[in-house]
């Protein structure tokens, strides 16, 4: 890449904007910012940023709405910022097309890691789909239906394989319960979280070194799961 990636920050709190601008610039990002949803959407269209960091509570409109409006014409990665206790909004934004979320207050390392993952994914999806997924110690060969961990073959049922493949293909990003249920089981708008809990439990037993202390398949409380391929 010849230029540093451009980040659009949409947040109405000046302290947060000031801090993030300083930190992100120091980390070799170009930064532009908007303090309202409307301004944010306009800037997103005018500047075509590489990634958007969006606060859910904005003075003029709902962050979820901003997210869905941008998604109508752009696939730019969007990371949601919000406070604890707004799981519903987070899930709504994620199901509306946001790529990831962070809960305020957050560590800057975490934000930088999420931004990098999101940019990497948006570049990867523009290429062709691979039939072999590498995610941390896990390698999945989709055409041959083989999963290995550190070269050792894992004995997975069809559902477990499908679940693991979905998680690994989107590694380091959160996947909502609903997204997983829809993708793996084909449930539209279902509440069968029990399916997910049971299968994630089984999968952890087979995939994790210590299923009691999972390092690969991480729970995002109230939101969904995340497959971790890199150490943040």
């Amino acid at each position, binding site marked *: 890449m010849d230029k540093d990636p451009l980040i659009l920050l949409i947040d109405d709190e000046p302290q947060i904007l000031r801090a993030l601008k300083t930190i992100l610039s120091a980390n070799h990002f170009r930064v532009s910012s908007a303090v309202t949803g409307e301004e944010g959407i306009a800037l997103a269209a005018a500047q075509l940023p590489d990634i958007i960091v969006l606060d859910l509570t904005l003075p003029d409109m709902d962050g979820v709405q901003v997210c869905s409006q941008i998604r109508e014409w752009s696939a730019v990665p969007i990371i949601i910022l919000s406070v604890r206790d707004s799981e519903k909004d987070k899930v709504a934004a994620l199901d509306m097309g946001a790529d990831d979320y962070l809960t305020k207050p957050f560590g800057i390392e975490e934000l930088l890691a999420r931004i990098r993952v999101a940019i990497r994914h948006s570049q990867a999806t523009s290429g062709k789909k691979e039939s072999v997924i590498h995610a941390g110690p896990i390698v999945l060969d989709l055409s041959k239906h083989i999963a290995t961990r550190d070269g050792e073959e894992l004995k997975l049922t*069809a559902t477990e394989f499908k679940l693991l493949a979905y998680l690994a293909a989107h590694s380091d990003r959160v996947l909502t319960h609903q997204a997983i249920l829809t993708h793996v089981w084909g449930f539209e708008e279902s509440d069968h979280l029990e399916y997910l809990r049971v299968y994630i439990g089984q999968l952890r037993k087979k995939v994790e070194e210590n299923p009691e202390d999972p390092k690969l398949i991480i729970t995002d409380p109230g939101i969904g799961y995340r497959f971790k391929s890199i150490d943040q």
Partner: protein
Amino acid sequence: MRKNILKIILSFFGPLLFVALTSLLLEWTSSLLNVQNMALIYLIPVMVSSVIWGLFAGLFAGLISFLAFNFFFIQPYNTLLVHQSQDLITLAVFLAVAVLLSQLIGQTRKAALLAKEREWEATRMYELISSLAGTTSIPSISETLAEKLGSNFELEHVEVDINAPSFPKKVTGTHPPGEKPDRLPEITKPMKTQRDQEGEIRIWQATGNLSNTEERLLEAFAEQGALAVERIRLSQGETKIHVLEESDRLKTSILNSVSHELRSPLAAIKASISSLRSGAVPWEHAARQELLTTIEEETDQLNLLVGNLLDMSRIESGSLEPHLRWNSIPEIAKSAAARMKGQLSGHILDFQLPGDLPLVPSDYVLLEQVFINLLSNSAKYAPEKTRIVVCAGLEKESIHIRVKNQSPHVAEDELQNIFEKFHRVTRADKVIGTGLGLSICKGIIEAHGGRIWAENLEDGFQFIFTLPLLLNGNLPETPKEVIDG
């Protein structure tokens, strides 16, 4: 109305008939009786008429008895003339006695009737008052009043409107239930207290007039209804004041507690940052890291505090609604422990959770908060290097989860209180915290339909909480394998 005419006719013909019968009887037996005996016997129809039909019938009976006596049995017969002065005295005395008697009996009878009427009124009033005393809301007052009016009065339809200060402007009770007649009510009665008009009673009744008794009773009903409304308004006001006072007291103690809790981390952060900025001292790498760690930890502490305050206010306002979904308790417990890593580093954490525990309907985030608060409490009070055990078991239709530690015993009578807001067993300056943690746990567990309590153990202390295993009466569905692969 027809009843009254019948009554008048009867009280006229009745005495007439009685006197006629008496005269006939005396005619047959006249040979056996003297004039004085006859006068006495003529008093019988007077008495009977007075008792049955009242004063006027009695007087009327007296008059016709007097005439009949004179006509048939005083010489010269079949005239109203009297020749002997002796007979005149008998007649005069008879008339006087008859009048006196009928008056006495009539009055007694009237008094008895009145007493009966009053008794009826009093019973109705008592019934009304005792049903009104049980009412706790304005709509139930209007319903009760309408129902009582409907059952005690002869009427087509009754409506009781009670004015309300806010929307809806009016509360209406009706009897019998259903549509009111399509015309204006014949009788309306305002319900007034000394301060205000509280409402109105509207009665549909074809004749449009009430008896004196009914009038009086209606008046009393209206008054009692108004008083009941006033009573409820006053008690509602009082409750509101009580709640306000309580919440004011709570806010003051939150402010006291929180300002201290907010200042200590802020002080540490401010001190660290200003030292780093000052440039007066060239900081070594290690010291720098130490200050930065302090800042980060204290920030987390502040965040935890704000989270607790938020939870508390949601519990207080009753807006805490757990989003119940099937969750795994071990997963939640471990994720809480992971978040608490720093605080728990001095203790040995031991999870004794069986692998086959069922999924439990719960709110992941809230339940994680419960574990965080219980673990944080254990870490604060239990000595370092001791064991904190989290274990779980099933009992009937609930799961029992225990967090055991080796902290000192809590007095038995304090065990209940530790879940109260701002309650702390030890002195406030010895241990950090707002005293909110356990009361938040209680709020969250109760919102899940469970129970939480604490017990002293032989070698420590334990928190126990229960959660129901069924969600809307169901266990979790057994998941299906996907077919396609």
